[in-house]
């Protein structure tokens, strides 16, 4: 009665190759270089676009490392939930705390 169906959970059926790895490394390097350059370009650094662009670039780097180097793209879906859940709770807590300490604010009409 032993069920010998191939284990669905066994990762490594899809495997990134050396090609993927060095491309990811190059991509990370380029984004980092762009980030650091932005710091030194006054027009960018002083504009309102600076902080969002920085956050987006870091988020992209984060995402790429997690999906490719940490394999989440190729692994069992369980790991995606196991990571995303806590990550969401962490992000929401951080954002909540920033609001509570007046580091972030939303202007809604007459309310500050």
């Amino acid at each position: 009665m032993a069920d010998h169906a191939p284990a669905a959970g066994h990762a490594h059926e899809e495997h990134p190759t050396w090609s993927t790895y060095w491309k990811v490394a190059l991509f990370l390097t380029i984004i980092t270089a762009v980030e650091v350059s932005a710091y030194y370009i006054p027009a960018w650094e002083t504009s309102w676009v600076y902080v969002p662009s920085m956050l987006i670039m870091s988020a992209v780097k984060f995402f790429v490392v997690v999906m490719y180097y940490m394999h989440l793209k190729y692994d069992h879906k369980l790991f995606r939930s196991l990571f995303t859940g806590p990550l969401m709770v962490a992000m929401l807590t951080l954002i909540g705390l920033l609001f509570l300490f007046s580091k972030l604010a939303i202007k809604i009409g007459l309310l500050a």
Partner: protein
Amino acid sequence: MTATTAPTTAHGDGHSHGDAPHAHGGGHYTSLGLDSRKIAIWTFIGSECMLFASLISTYLIYKGRSPEGPFPHETWTNPMTGEVFKPILNIPVTSASTFVLLMSSLAMVLALAAVQNRHVPKVTTGQKILGSSKLWLWMTCLLGIGFLGCQAYEFTSFIHEGLTIRTNLFGSSFFTLTGFHGAHVTAGVIWLFTLLAIDYKRGLQPEDATIVDIAALYWHFVDVVWIAIFTLVYLIK
């Protein structure tokens, strides 16, 4: 039929393993066919997200709230002594150390691949280089130590320039946040050296891929936390 035999059992042979699919190292049954250690490390990483989120939150909450300098991005003159403190953070050096840490993740990924593909025949020199787990574990460790060296240099120069963990809120939150991160890197380096020792002793076989994988996951996570810290602490004024 008594209640104790109501749930039907798969086999009468009484063996604890080999009686179900998804048999894993040691042959124990698992519900999902995954290695328990991998599930545990991801859970640990989830927990660490909250740890670093709290540390980063505190840094951001206290940003700009130190009544006295030195400050990260601005010059400050001590009103009592007249001493001038230039902005403490050194972006060029930290950019270099960030790059070093990112490259260590590449080395780590190659080390894991080398262990997984140990028995794949290698023909070209390029393949042989890529396939050496010892080489890539060494590279990861050295790059990690390189990062720590840059941190050590940074910290000591900050202290020389007048910023210690006790000086002000910036000092306390900065050194605690980056110190915790550095401690995690250090633990990772020790872990990787242990794997290297095993590799020298008996060679890391494809069956060992999981223990290398969990070390790798930890290592990449520590890198990813640094991505967040570098942006939030260094690049955003």
